[in-house]
């Protein structure tokens, strides 16, 4: 698919350049003496185009989703920006008042929309902290452009439009130069947007110069036609690439998820915990076989869950709570001071990623010290609020200062990652010294949105 797209791009480009030169030669009405100039310009422009289209095609391979959308919007707007004026010129007489008044407005409006789209794309994709020098550069380039245009032509509104166009071009070039290294390595989309800007600016400039020199109308129109063809081709290529990328993304997604889950399982079976529990069981058998048997049943239940987890993604919430209870029973057996778990369960008819609740309980057991407090508790609660299930794990233990503590445990990070991958939600942890800890997870009461990625 990609190869086809590239080949088509190149073929159309070639055809476009030939057509441009041929039309330019054929349309020699008034300014025959300037023919050579326009041909040189056209060829230069085509080379320019060719280079950037190739880069752009390559860059489409590695586009990120949000960039893809904004670039596409920008491309469409640019397209209208060109066609709008030409349509007016084709439908009405070149010299009519409508074209004279509406044409520049068209240009200007679509140009502004394009600029906004591209700025939005920069802002969202790269979240740039714009340095002061950039403003200086932009303002300077705008002033120079404005002066140049005011001297060369007096087109009124259109002059301002093109000045702004050049301003944007300036910002773009500056950004590219500043971030060329990282841009080339991480996201070639930058080059795509630049390619469009360069190419269109080039074509506009050429056609404007032609018009200024009273070069034939057909030649001018032909210059407009080429970027439009290219723009459409790019869109086509982007669509083709996008379908490929979706498949790639799904498989990558799955791979990443499997990695995270494997890590979760590895972390869950903690040698330290298992051996300590076995030691506790040894002692319990000295007290009585009944106590020992119970402990063995608990430990084997815990291990069985962890082993089963390898083949499971989701588990009914109720079963996850059973797993939690086994864990708490084991800890209570080991530590002597019992943890008081309160199940404030209002709604239990939903699923959660397997072993996703345990890390929060483990953390509470490890750090909250609620078992040393007389009225200490760990409260697991679910509430149905409209379409959302609010799942919270609260303890009234010692708490901690989230800012001072290093990133939370591996188990919690892992659970959080799986919650966000499988269900599109992120658990929020709230805590303060002496105030206890609350983990809040807000789930949508429906099929997990990303489950389609996981077979």
């Amino acid at each position, binding site marked *: 698919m990609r190869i086809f797209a590239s080949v088509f791009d190149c073929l159309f480009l070639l055809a476009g350049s030939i057509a441009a030169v041929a039309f330019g030669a054929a349309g020699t009405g008034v300014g025959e003496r300037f023919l050579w100039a326009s041909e040189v310009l056209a060829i230069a422009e085509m080379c320019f185009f060719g280079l950037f289209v190739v880069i752009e095609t390559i860059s489409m391979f590695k586009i990120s989703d949000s960039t893809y959308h904004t670039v596409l919007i920008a491309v469409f707007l640019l397209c209208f920006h060109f066609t709008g004026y030409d349509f007016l010129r084709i439908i009405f007489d070149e010299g009519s008042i409508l074209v004279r008044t509406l044409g520049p407005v068209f240009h200007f409006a679509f140009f502004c929309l394009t600029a906004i789209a591209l700025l939005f794309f920069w802002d969202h994709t790269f979240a740039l902290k714009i340095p002061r020098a950039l403003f200086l550069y932009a303002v300077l380039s705008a002033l120079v452009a404005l002066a140049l245009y005011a001297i060369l032509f007096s087109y009124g509104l259109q002059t301002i439009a093109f000045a702004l166009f050049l301003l944007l071009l300036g910002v773009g070039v500056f950004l590219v130069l500043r971030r060329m290294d990282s841009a080339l390595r991480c996201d070639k989309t930058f080059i795509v947007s630049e390619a469009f800007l360069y190419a269109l600016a080039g074509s506009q400039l050429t056609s404007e110069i032609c018009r200024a020199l009273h070069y034939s109308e057909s030649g001018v129109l032909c210059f407009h036609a080429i970027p439009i063809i290219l723009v459409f081709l790019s869109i086509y290529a982007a669509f083709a690439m996008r379908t490929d990328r979706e498949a790639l993304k799904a498989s990558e997604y799955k791979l990443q998820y499997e990695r995270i889950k494997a890590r979760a399982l590895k972390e869950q079976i903690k040698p330290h915990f298992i051996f300590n529990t076995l030691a506790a069981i040894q002692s319990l058998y000295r007290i009585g076989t*009944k106590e020992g*048997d119970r402990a*063995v*049943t608990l430990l*084997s*239940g815990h291990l*069985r869950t962890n*082993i*089963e987890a390898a083949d499971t993604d989701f588990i009914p919430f109720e079963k996850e709570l*059973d797993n939690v*209870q086994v864990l708490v029973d084991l800890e209570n057996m080991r530590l002597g001071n019992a943890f008081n778990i*309160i*199940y*404030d*369960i*209002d709604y239990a008819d939903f699923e959660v990623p397997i072993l996703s609740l345990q890390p929060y309980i483990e953390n509470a057991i490890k750090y909250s010290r609620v078992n040393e407090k007389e009225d200490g508790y760990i*409260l697991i*609660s679910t509430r149905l609020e409209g379409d959302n299930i609010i799942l919270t794990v609260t303890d009234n233990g010692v708490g901690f200062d989230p800012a001072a503590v290093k990133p939370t445990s591996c188990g919690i990070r892992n659970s959080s990652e799986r919650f966000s991958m499988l269900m599109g939600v992120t658990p929020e942890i709230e805590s303060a010294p002496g105030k206890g800890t609350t983990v809040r997870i807000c789930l949508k009461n429906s099929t997990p949105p990303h489950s389609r990625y996981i077979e």
Partner: protein
Amino acid sequence: MKIIIVDDEMVAHHTFLSDVIGKTDAEYRFFKDDEKEILDYVQKNSVSAAFLDISMPHISGFELAEKLIAVNGEIKLVFVTGLSAKLSDLEGEVRAHTVGFLYKPYDAEKLRSLIAVIERGAPRLTVRMFGSFDCFVGENPVRFSSNKSKELFALLLAYNGKSLSMADTISQLWPDLDIDKSKILYRDAVWRLRKTLRQIGIECVEFARACLFLKKDDIQCDYWDYLRGLPAEYNGEFCKSYDWSIEYLAALDRIDRR
């Protein structure tokens, strides 16, 4: 009642099973995975149940189960496994004959309850309300995971088939607590009661929103018997240590006088 246990492991490993089953009325015999010997034995003896290991080198537990059913249409099956298995893994005849699963390492309580089910069919709950409140499945006392969930169940039984609302429960079990706290504790007790009943396999309570209903079919309760005039030992004590029992005591004493 005769039980056979089929496992390819060394018989010496079965001390635990011998210990637990030996204390019941069941007669038991161990077999290696020798198909011919097993089928021969089942043909000649009336075997109530077979405990089958699922993965054995010569024949799988599932295959053996089918052959056993062909020989003895009444046989009940328990699958024993080190990993995990569910009823949904089974099909047709085998599924219909299966009473449960036993995981290794063995859970003595689970084993006892399985034998009780094989012997007596569906488990029944025996409730003692006179004196202190306690529940039994066969001989085994039911272990509730919290005192309040036990008390909740006692109250539900005392209601004798009437539905028990959350408001009623809270006013009886947590009369002094503020409403938000008591609601949380109510839901905790309900959740735990549900877990306990599910564990012992007697799901006699219907859990509706803020309301509980009792299905009385599988329960034998001394208090209910006494109310119906059946023989039951009333010793002047009812659900000892539960505050709300006083009004029931008064009512019981009135019956007593009559």
